[in-house]
């Protein structure tokens, strides 16, 4: 059978439909021109199948292929996941211009399966999973219709039914494989997004960074506490320490840079952090950030094996968080860190200030320090100063070169990054080691599941100062200006107009919407905990629980056994066929009538035709016979002449015969 069969129109249309479904959610990742091209190609091929449009010339095809290649090369300079997906989609739709045989369509469908996989890189919620399942169904139907060669009119419907059944039957296999097939770790790393860190706290703080974050209501992470959730004003989720200022932007100095993995690791943190009192154990489900830092409350003392502590007492790991990730941390809210003193180097870097910036602030800091006498008094004075004269807004005025001078004397309105930045600058100018800490502050308790959801709009920046004998102490100047920001969340710290600027303004205004979102979020959260987060370690634990041991041979034996069981169930042809394929309704009605008649004393002989039987009854009992004759006539007309008959009428006749049985003198 070496013949290459030509592609049937029906199969082609199923293919186009599945392509449409597959490409649609990827549109967000594709360059706009490729999206347009993809849909244009699908439409064109559809029109071609209707005989309306024409095949392109060979040169046009070559031209389009070259143009797409050039376009991809121009759009993507680096080879990130987006580039790969775009390339894949381009090939996926361009093949339509060269699609003639059944085996072409078959291979294209297989490619479709892979493209569905890339959809799942970007969405991992339950809705996305369901959508992908629909896509798998469509592609499989395409494969089947394509294989049947178009065939008769019912082939599509039949295929749809068969594939649905097959997918349901495949599910137990999938579950077993899912739980049992060993998880190999990442083999190589390709960043998921081309523009890294599109949302989330970034490794630098320039004016305007945070306001763009606050426009987003995307979830940053969810935290589940073992016991009770700490007070909102303790929920300072540390991510990074920014200790270098160039006059405009706060960044990590080299020893603090968690991306430069070598020196930043704080090996002897255990001897320098003293903790006491209460302890919180919690689990964080972090959304992908494409960065390598993690979030934790101060002071984290216990965390996963491949998570490390940086010199700024923040957590980070080696790999980028390219997928939703879960980790557990224990933190002590009361702690002292480096109370015995800090190294000269650290002291120097915590006092670093750029020359030629903000001369007024420097001078003010020195004079205030002289007046205050102690760092604590200075901090108090500064906080009182901003508390009385400043206000919190998400729409600050644009600041010039001496940004802090202007902020402190002139505009006096801003949000966390302004307050934290100017506070640290002021402290450093006064000779007190200080640094900016960025992360998130607060979070919202999900009423359904009781976990804490932290969103991008909770992004926050605060400060730490180093005080003799006290170590690093957290100071949040924003708290002084807008305490409700810390206590209740950012949406309560702004006026009506201001809160419109926050992400997701709509659902916060409508209770029903917010409630619905909470439920959906809780559902998604459970989905992620149970499905998405099943990793190598959980697998091991699961196997231990189920099989008693995770030795490979035991698992192989178990899995073979389970598979054999599933196959045996599927192979038993009788079991569910019988129950499903009952006799047709008409036959059942007729047989029921025969039962009633036999109760009346008329037994149908073996091999006696319906008509003969009815005539025999009517010879004996005219009245009953009339009913039986009509019923038999209906039955015969349906069964032998394939005519449509009135089933209610037949039912009524049978019912009447049944009624006669009750009146029967025989009983």
């Amino acid at each position, binding site marked *: *059978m070496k013949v290459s069969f030509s592609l049937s129109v029906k199969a082609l249309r199923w293919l186009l439909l599945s392509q449409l479904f597959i490409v649609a959610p990827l549109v967000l990742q594709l360059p706009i021109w490729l999206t347009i091209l993809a849909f244009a190609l699908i439409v064109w091929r559809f029109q071609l199948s209707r005989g309306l449009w024409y095949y392109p010339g060979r040169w046009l095809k070559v031209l389009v292929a070259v143009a797409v290649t050039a376009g991809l090369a121009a759009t993507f300079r680096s080879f990130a996941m987006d580039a790969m997906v775009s390339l894949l989609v381009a090939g996926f739709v361009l093949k339509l211009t060269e699609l003639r045989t059944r*085996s072409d369509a*078959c*291979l294209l469908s*297989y*490619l479709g*399966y*892979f493209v*569905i*996989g*890339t959809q*799942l*890189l970007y969405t*991992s919620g339950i809705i996305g*999973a369901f959508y*992908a*399942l629909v896509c*798998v169904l469509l592609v*499989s139907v395409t*494969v*089947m219709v394509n*294989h*049947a060669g178009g*065939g*008769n009119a019912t082939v599509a419907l039949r*295929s749809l039914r*068969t*594939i649905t059944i*097959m*997918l349901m*039957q*495949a*599910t137990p*296999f*999938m579950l077993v*494989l*899912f739980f049992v*097939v060993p*998880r*190999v*770790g*990442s*083999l*190589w790393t*390709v960043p*998921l997004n081309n523009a890294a860190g599109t949302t989330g706290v970034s490794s630098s703080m320039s004016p305007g960074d945070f306001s763009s974050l606050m426009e987003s209501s995307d979830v940053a992470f969810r935290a589940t506490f073992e016991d009770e959730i700490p007070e909102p004003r303790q929920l300072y989720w540390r991510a990074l320490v920014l200790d270098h200022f160039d006059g405009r932007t706060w960044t990590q100095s080299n020893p603090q840079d968690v991306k430069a993995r070598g020196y930043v690791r704080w090996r002897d943190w255990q001897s320098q952090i003293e903790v006491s009192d209460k302890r919180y154990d919690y689990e964080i489900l972090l959304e992908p950030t494409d960065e390598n830092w993690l979030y934790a409350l101060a002071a984290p003392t216990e965390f996963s094996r491949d998570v490390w502590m940086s010199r700024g007492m923040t957590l980070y790991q080696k790999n980028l968080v*390219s*997928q939703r990730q879960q980790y557990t941390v224990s933190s002590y809210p009361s702690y002292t860190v480096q109370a015995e003193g800090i190294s000269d180097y650290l002291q120097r870097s915590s006092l670093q200030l750029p020359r030629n910036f903000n001369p007024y602030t420097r001078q003010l800091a020195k004079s205030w320090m002289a007046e205050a006498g102690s760092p604590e008094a200075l901090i108090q004075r500064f906080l009182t100063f901003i508390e009385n004269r400043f206000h919190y807004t998400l729409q600050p005025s644009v600041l010039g070169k001496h940004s802090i001078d202007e902020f402190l004397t002139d505009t006096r309105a801003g949000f966390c990054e302004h307050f934290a930045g100017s506070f640290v600058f002021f402290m450093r100018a006064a000779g007190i080691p200080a640094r900016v800490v960025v992360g998130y502050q607060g979070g919202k308790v999900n009423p359904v599941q009781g976990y804490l959801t932290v969103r991008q709009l909770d992004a926050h920046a605060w400060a730490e100062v180093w005080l003799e004998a006290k170590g690093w102490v957290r100071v949040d100047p924003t708290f002084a200006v807008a305490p409700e920001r810390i206590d209740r969340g950012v949406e309560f710290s702004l006026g009506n107009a201001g809160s419109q600027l926050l992400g997701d303004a709509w659902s916060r205004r409508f209770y029903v919407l917010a409630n619905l979102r909470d439920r959906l979020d809780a559902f998604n959260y459970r989905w992620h905990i149970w*499905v*998405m*987060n*099943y*990793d190598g370690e959980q697998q091991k634990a699961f196997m231990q629980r189920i099989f008693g041991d995770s030795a490979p041979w035991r698992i192989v034996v178990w899995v073979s056994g389970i*598979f054999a069981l599933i*196959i045996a169930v*599927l*192979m038993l*042809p009788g079991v569910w*066929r019988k129950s499903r*394929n009952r006799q047709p309704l008409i036959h059942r009605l007729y047989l029921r009538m025969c039962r009633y008649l036999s109760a009346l004393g008329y037994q149908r002989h073996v091999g006696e035709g319906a008509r003969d039987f009815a005539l025999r009854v009517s010879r004996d009992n005219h009245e009953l016979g009339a009913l039986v004759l009509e019923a038999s006539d209906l039955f015969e007309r349906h069964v032998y002449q394939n005519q449509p008959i009135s089933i209610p009428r037949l039912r009524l006749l049978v019912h009447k015969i049944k009624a006669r049985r009750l009146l029967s003198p025989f009983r």
Partner: protein
Amino acid sequence: MRLSNRIEAVFWRWTEKRVPRSRQVTLRHRSIYVIPSKSSLGFTVAIFLLWLLGTNYQNNLILAASFLLMGLFFVSIIHAFRNLSGLTLSVNAPSPGFCCQMVNVPIELSTAENMAAHDLWLGMAPDGLAQADVPQGAAATIALQVLPERRGWLQPGRIIVKSYYPLGLVRVWSWVYLDTNILIYPQPTPPTFVDHLGRGGESEEGARIQADDDFMGFVDYQPGAPLSQVAWKLYARGAGLHLKQYGGAERASFWLDYENLTGGVEQRLSGLCYLALEWHQSGRDFGLKLPGQTISVAAGEAHLHQVLKALALYQPESAK
């Protein structure tokens, strides 16, 4: 080469033993073979790539998709097997054919109640496959063609029944040996006569054989009459269609005589076959004389069949 031939022979004998020849064969697990098809390679690659993607990005959903496809593969094996399992092939007295001409072997396909069989490919030779579908609760008849190489009884060789249903991922097939005999007549070829008969029709017998006499007159054309009886000359004159009527009771009888033809055994039988067909078509009565066997003069389909059957099954003395 010889060894491989022998292994092949042993293998075929083994397959035949698994399902003994019979007029009706129902495919069961003993005779159904399953192997992944070529196109399953592409599918497997897709599964592997998905698994790789899922593993690398530690994305459980992609892994699940890959496992789902793997499950689909397993399930498709079961469906493919069930598609063929329970299929019954039966053959009912195929009509005879001629040597070296394609003979149709009608095969009836039926399935167990409430089962259907889709996308079946049946054939006797690997290249001549015919497609068939058996709808649920129905039967289908498919004509397989076989090219007989010699006259006599032909027992059809193994029939391959295969299917790639449902997804084309697995090839499921069975070799079926149906127990039936097809009578193969000799190949009809124009005869060459013994010399003294061939010369201008002088001899008595020759004249009879070649004669076109006993002509009785014309009758009106009857639809279905053999074309050779049509009076074409009359028709050409514009007199309409008429048939030439040959003598009924007075018809001369003709003999097909083995001894009157030249050539080898097969050549002579082929010649006789040719003549028998010709004469039958022109409505003559004729008899057959073979060495050691004579069929008396008669006419009609049954007679023709009897004559041709004698020709088909004739065994020359030397071969006995």
